[in-house]
């Protein structure tokens, strides 16, 4: 094995040296212009994509050259188990990836850590490790695509995306990337054999089938949804077309401003005072409560959608996960301005979790994390603690100030604070009329009789939550709460479209959604709800019928296909059961793993008549 390892290192050493030098120069120059380590997630995804493309190209080229028949025989026909041959090639490739791709990043990061004022945390070094593992994943995917007999093998690229693209801690993400690489390595091993057909090997077939089915599931959803919507657009009936929004529907509600949303809530109200409130309500007296955050950055995550920085006045604030505090730097002069903890500038109290900046309807600045809301004061270097929530209750990053009242949104309630002579005091708490995740938007409006609160649902309608009500409350001057309006929003899309994730394959739907439920990603939970509740949603009868029809049709087609393929009864039964349980994605994977060419080949022996006898 060691000889193959060294041979492969020799083969690509020049290319690796050139890649190393180019990477070092480009990253250094780019990092000079922006703080790459603390940039937002999109920038990190672009970097990850570039490295992944390099890894993919490397794998495709390397195994594309080995796949040629004579080279394949040279590589495989030797007194060495194929596992050792693959290990030699893979280890050499891993070393090359580490040296050419990861080392320049470590060098740049290390220099930045020691010679600049920029924030460099442990998670940044872990991020480089994650990039290296992603590159290796792409290399393995390239190897699999090149060695697999089916041209559909490229769908394996979905697997790393499904498994590793999560806003979780670096420990979790690294573990997922390692697991993903282990799965991919096994898949490559299953096709890294003298005879690259895997159809006769049950384990290899199953190993190939599972990611294929997941990938087909995703592809069917994306492709099907795209086709359906493009069809709607071409016919001019797409609900998102400006002049076609369904009256009383969710799309229309999404387009409302705060004032219009409250008016819509009052329009269906049976309360005799509603017409008066609607007439008296002015746009300036209405404000939105978000939710402006459905997910908070967990500690030591690899990357975050909004980045680690924001500008406030003359200063750039950069959050450090090692210290759980902000580092302040003067934007123009570049001088360090010290650290800002939970108590403000110079305070060393760490934040509970990474806050994100936000503003209220008056454009006043705040910092909010899962459990605390701080108001930025005095040029932003002093923090005033506004609200703290405990336990499973988390803030929804919604705040509106209407006169003397302040409304705050959490995942359990809306808190109304009343400003009095001796400061601000709680006036009322309005429990959310629906789970936090279903909330599309919340509005507050000030009228003579008190504060109106409108809750519009439908945020998860595309995920199968059918109900999308709008509920309106009045909190009067004494803090009493009364429901003053309720209506159900119309459906913009057909029911089958809204539930497509489920009826295409309920089991694969659960598998694809499990990571979100199992991995701690800082998602604001539905207060008091089971984390698996979304898997047990009630489905309409026609959705059940569509699911059952597809499953049965897949099963019958699988029976026909496997009969043509001449598979053994046990294999046929396994495929039919898989298609019954997993639906169309399983059927498509069967057609890929037992393609037509195989059928012909298998049929050849049985049907062909021997050629003329020898002379």
């Amino acid at each position, binding site marked *: 094995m060691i*000889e*193959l390892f*060294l*041979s492969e290192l*020799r*083969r690509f050493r020049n290319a690796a040296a050139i890649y190393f030098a180019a990477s070092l120069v480009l990253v250094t120059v780019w990092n000079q212009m922006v703080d790459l380590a603390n940039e937002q997630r999109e920038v990190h995804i672009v970097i990850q994509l570039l490295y992944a493309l390099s890894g993919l190209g490397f794998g495709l080229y390397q195994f594309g050259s080995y796949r*040629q*028949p*004579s*080279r*394949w*025989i*040279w590589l*495989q*026909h*030797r*007194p*060495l*188990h194929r596992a050792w041959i693959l290990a030699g090639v893979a280890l050499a490739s891993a070393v090359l990836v580490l040296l050419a791709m990861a080392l320049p990043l470590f060098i740049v990061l290390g220099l930045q850590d020691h010679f600049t004022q920029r924030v460099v945390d442990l998670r940044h070094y872990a991020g480089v490790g994650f990039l290296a593992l992603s590159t290796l994943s792409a290399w393995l995917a390239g190897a699999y695509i090149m060695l697999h007999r089916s041209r559909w093998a490229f769908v394996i690229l979905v697997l790393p995306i499904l498994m590793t693209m999560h806003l979780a801690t670096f420990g979790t993400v690294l573990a997922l990337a390692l697991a993903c690489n282990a799965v991919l390595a096994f898949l490559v091993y299953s096709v890294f054999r*003298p*005879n690259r*057909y895997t159809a*006769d090997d049950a384990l290899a077939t199953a190993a190939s089938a599972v990611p294929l089915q997941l990938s087909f599931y995703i592809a069917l959803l994306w492709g099907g949804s795209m086709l359906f919507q493009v069809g709607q657009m071409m016919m001019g009936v797409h609900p998102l077309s400006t002049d076609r929004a369904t009256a009383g529907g969710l799309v229309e509600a999404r387009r409302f401003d705060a004032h219009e949303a409250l008016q819509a809530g009052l329009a269906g109200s049976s309360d005799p005072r509603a017409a008066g409130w609607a007439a008296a309500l002015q746009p300036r007296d209405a404000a939105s409560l978000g939710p402006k955050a459905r997910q908070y950055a967990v500690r030591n995550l690899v990357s975050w959608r909004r980045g680690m920085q924001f500008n406030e006045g003359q200063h750039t604030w950069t959050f450090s996960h090692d210290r759980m505090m902000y580092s302040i730097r003067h934007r123009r002069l570049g001088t360090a301005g010290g650290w800002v903890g939970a108590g403000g500038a110079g305070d060393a109290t760490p934040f509970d979790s990474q806050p994100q900046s936000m503003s209220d309807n008056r454009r006043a600045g705040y910092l909010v994390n899962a459990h605390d809301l701080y108001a930025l004061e005095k040029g932003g270097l002093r923090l005033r603690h506004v609200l703290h929530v405990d336990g499973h209750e988390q803030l929804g990053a919604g705040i509106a100030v209407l006169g003397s009242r302040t409304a705050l949104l959490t995942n359990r309630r809306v808190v109304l604070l009343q400003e009095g002579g001796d400061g601000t005091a709680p006036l009322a708490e309005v429990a959310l009329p629906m789970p936090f995740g279903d909330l599309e938007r919340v509005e507050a409006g000030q009228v003579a009789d008190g504060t109106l609160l409108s809750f519009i649902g439908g945020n998860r309608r595309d995920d199968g939550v059918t109900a999308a009500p709008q509920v309106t409350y009045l909190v009067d001057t004494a803090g009493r709460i009364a429901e003053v309006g309720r209506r159900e929003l119309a459906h913009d899309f057909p029911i089958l479209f809204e539930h497509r994730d489920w009826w295409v394959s309920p089991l694969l739907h659960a598998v694809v959604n499990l990571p979100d439920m199992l991995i701690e990603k800082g998602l604001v939970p539905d207060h008091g709800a089971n984390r698996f509740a979304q898997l047990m949603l009630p489905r309409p009868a026609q959705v059940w019928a569509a699911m059952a029809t597809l499953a049965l049709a897949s099963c019958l087609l699988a029976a026909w296909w496997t009969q043509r393929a001449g598979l053994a009864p046990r294999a046929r039964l396994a495929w039919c059961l898989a298609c019954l349980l997993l639906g169309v994605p399983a059927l498509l994977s069967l057609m890929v793993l037992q393609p037509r*060419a195989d059928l*012909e*080949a*298998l049929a*050849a*022996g*049985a049907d*062909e008549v*021997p*050629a003329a006898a*020898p*002379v």
Partner: protein
Amino acid sequence: MNDYVIETEGLCLRYKGKLALDHLSLHLPRGGIHAFVGANGAGKSSLFRVLLGFEPPSAGSARVLGHDSSRLTPEVRGRIGFVNEEHTLPGWMRVRDLMRMQQRHYEHAGSRPWNGERYEEVLSHFNVLPAQRVGELSRGERAGLNLALALAQSPELLILDEPTLGLDVVAKRAFLDALLQSCIDDGSTIVYCSHQMDEIERVADNLVILERGSLRYMSGPDDFCGRVQLWVAEFPFKAPEVRGLPGVLQVQQLDGLTHVVTFDQLDADAFEARLKLLGARRVQVMPLGLDRAVNAFLSHGHAGARRAA
């Protein structure tokens, strides 16, 4: 120990819609040099790919050294050497590194040790330096290196797919000598595929003729030549159609004489009488060399020959 190094029963291989191997049943005895002959597309390379486990048979079975070809273990692979016509070797490696790698892999493989002397001896006929990169070698030099490596492995079964393409006369002779020596010293069984009949005539103990994926003939080359005869007939007028006569492989008109090549024409007198009955003034029979005999044998079923006919 199994008496056959290669056994196939009803072996079929369909490749890209074509039947590359057509119910091939072959039993190749242990020992000696077996020459495989056939036109392009006869299925020789396909057969080797199936035998080495690189292509799954569409039907039938194939066994090598007594083992199912689709389940060859590394230990069995160590007993089988293979050299292809392209002499594919890693161009980025130096000759000495490649030799060391093969030596390490094969020194404990099979029952025979790595034969360094044979490696040096075969390579000495080529101008190859240990520090040279494989990619810098000419085709002939690369072929020499590949053959030296294969012979140094001392395999129990050595499969050579047109190995001497690109070799000059001296190198070819040296290689064939080494091949014979290996066969004698180690008792290796050698499967030798070539279009060079002079080479086959010199080294082969057994001749295997494949045509369109089927076995057409198998026996010693001398025996084969003994069964192919050339009849030269002189017809005073227009030569009659003799292709339809039993056993006729090839008919040619040369210098006003009709040359008829036949196979297994056991009753020579009867065939001569038949030609005379068709109007031949004079008939002469003579033996054929292997090259001409194989040529006639293969042209009988050759696609081009059929079109010409």
